[in-house]
């Protein structure tokens, strides 16, 4: 087996996401390819608002990268936001005659507003902010500034370690135990961080299993997971979402990642997850959803359309790129075909949702860092958490 690069720890990856310099990274990720100023275009409508207020440069950077889609995944987004906020706490200058907590609260509010404009905040981010705010409000005005600053910094640090890093570790460990008998066939969809960790952990533990990675438009990130698994020597099958009914009778367990768990037991996950869970349910295959409890939301949504505005700002061209692979090879032919496609594109509307909702009836259990839970227990966990915060 070839020596493969070790996967970076999630914290390090988040730090790298935030600090990496080259703007090229963003450009190559942007699907238009070749066009200049892509990130600027993507946030052009924000420009007037952006320059009215001054934001912390790190926050600014994080926000723009989220909007361009180069920081994705709810854990990564939350972590990079927290890194930026920690830096904000460090650099915050308290105006005269005001105390630290109150003035930082205002800065935080405008930061939230900014991040929401870049891309609607993920549930993980909302929960992170709620955590910070609740602790900020507890700091009394008599506490000296430096003490408060230090306290807040360590709180943010603690959230990152306890709620995120350790949670990921615990879920990885517990989840890997669920691959328990020889020759299991695990099906997963997309490239969820937790599932990837679980599969790699189980493989390290010497378990014998086969992975089926399902991929689908619009995100097509399953390929990354497949490459990661194959390079480590895990037996892998790669299919597109249309073939799930064909492979499902061989599958023993389905592992899904989730963007968030909602209070009504629905799992909000990248679009297509519900379809996987549905077909798994029809074949009586258990569906395990991996989700840290900091991603539990008190929202109770029933319709995937309510989530339609939570995707990154991205031009939706993918559906029409088949014109490029047409029969005519000469550049002129391709050009005219592209024009034709563009003309038609105006008539065909394209709907691109980022998330869908998987009903609790399809979810066998949720793997969290607290324990294995049924979908109906999400509200209990949330209640417990709000109680702690008060």
């Amino acid at each position: 087996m070839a020596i493969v690069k070790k996967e970076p720890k999630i914290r390090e990856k988040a730090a790298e996401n935030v600090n990496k310099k080259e703007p090229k990274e963003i450009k190559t990720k942007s699907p238009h390819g070749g066009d200049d100023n892509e990130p600027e275009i993507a946030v052009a409508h924000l420009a007037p608002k952006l320059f009215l207020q001054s934001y912390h440069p790190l926050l600014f950077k994080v926000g723009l990268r989220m909007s361009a889609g180069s920081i994705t995944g709810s854990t990564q987004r939350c972590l990079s936001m927290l890194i930026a906020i920690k830096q904000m706490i460090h650099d915050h200058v308290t105006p005269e005659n005001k105390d630290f907590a109150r003035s930082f609260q205002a800065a935080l509010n405008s930061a939230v507003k900014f991040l929401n404009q870049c891309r609607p905040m993920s549930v993980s981010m909302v929960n992170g902010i709620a955590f910070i705010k609740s602790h900020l409000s507890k700091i009394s005005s008599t506490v000296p500034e430096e003490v408060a600053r230090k306290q807040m910094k360590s709180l943010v640090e603690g959230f990152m370690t306890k709620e995120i890093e350790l949670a990921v570790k615990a879920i990885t460990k517990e989840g890997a135990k669920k691959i328990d008998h020889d020759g299991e066939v695990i099906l997963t969809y997309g490239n969820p961080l937790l599932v990837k960790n679980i599969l790699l952990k189980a493989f390290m533990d010497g378990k014998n299993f086969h992975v089926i990675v399902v991929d689908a438009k619009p995100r097509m990130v399953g390929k990354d997971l497949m490459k990661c698994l194959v390079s480590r020597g895990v037996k892998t099958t790669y299919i597109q979402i249309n073939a799930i009914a064909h492979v499902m009778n061989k599958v023993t367990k389905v592992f899904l990642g989730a963007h968030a768990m909602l209070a009504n037991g629905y799992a909000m996950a990248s679009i297509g997850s519900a379809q996987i869970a549905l077909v798994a349910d029809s074949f009586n295959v258990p569906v395990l959803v991996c989700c840290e409890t900091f991603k539990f939301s008190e929202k109770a949504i029933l319709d995937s359309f309510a989530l339609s505005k939570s995707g990154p700002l991205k031009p939706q061209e993918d559906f029409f790129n088949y014109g490029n692979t047409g029969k005519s090879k000469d550049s002129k032919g391709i050009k005219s075909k592209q024009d034709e496609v563009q003309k038609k594109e105006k008539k065909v509307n394209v709907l691109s949702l980022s998330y869908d909702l998987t009903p609790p009836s399809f979810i066998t259990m949720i793997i969290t860092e607290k324990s294995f839970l049924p979908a109906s227990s999400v509200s209990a966990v949330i209640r417990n958490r709000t109680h702690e915060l008060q």
Partner: protein
Amino acid sequence: MDKLSEDKIAEIRSVTQVDKLVEDLKLGKVNGCYLKAFRTMDLLEKGVKGCAWNSAQDLISIFTCIGDLLSKADPIETVPTNIVLRVLKGIRDEYVTASSKNPGDKSIGFDTEESLPKMMISDDLATHDYAQPFKDLKENIIDYLSELDSELEASVENIASKSLEQISSGQVILTAGKSKSVEAFLKYAAKYMTFQVFVAESEPSGNGTELAMKLAEAGINTILIPDSAIFAIMPRVNKVIIGTHSVMANGGLKAVSGSYALAYAAKNHSVPLTVCTPIFKITPNYLISHDQVAFNKFVSPHQILPFHESPFSTETEVVNPVFDYVPPELVNGFVTNWGCYTPSYVYRLLSELYHRRDYLS
């Protein structure tokens, strides 16, 4: 059925040029079920006119031979076989009619209608040998073929004209893949009312994109969605209308892969699923086990994972099936050129369309 001599097979081959169609089927050059049907009809017409035969029995064995050749060309493809079976049934019916007109024949007053008691007795199997030559049988068969030809030609319009019973104004329709019948169906309805159509892309072939463009050009409010969004939009959909590759004898479908998830999602949301299909797509085949390997067709994985992405493309198993089996309980109805039927009625259509002796051998 007696085996044909080598000479006879050679004659059939040269007269009907069946090898050309076999080759085209193997290479996948014949696109669309209608084209396949017409080419098979062409071939059979040549066979009736060109081959030497005396009685219905001779002709039946000639056509059975052609049917064998065609089904071997592509065992997954059902349309050419169905057409041959249909014509065989026609020949048998013509023979029975002719013989009932002839006084002195042993089967005077034979009733062509089938019924349950008769199936049990199987009187027809025992009495008819189709060996008697009749003067005007050839003419009658040629007439039958031209009738069938015009039926095939009109089938798209016939299906389309039934759309007004199925769709009503303001509804939201979901479809997937590319089907000539569905396209005509929706376009016909769009002349009389406005509605919205969601089209799933049907990756990896991306056929849905083509359909979406055609519908949009016809002025229908069309929205293209990725396959992954099927479940998410289902609550908004009033009706799912899809085409199919073939209809199995139990009323199940062999349809483009992804249809199972689509049909099951529809069932889950209690959205009715209607299938538009010409009658010649009904096949006497069953899916015996749910292990779909023999039933399915697998194409190059290149569409999913390009070869140049080595070493991953060589170390990964990539599955790219073309079809999905959709069980009859997920289908609410068929719209055919003969009329609208439920899956439970398909077995009855089968006995109207084909003769048991031809497909049970």
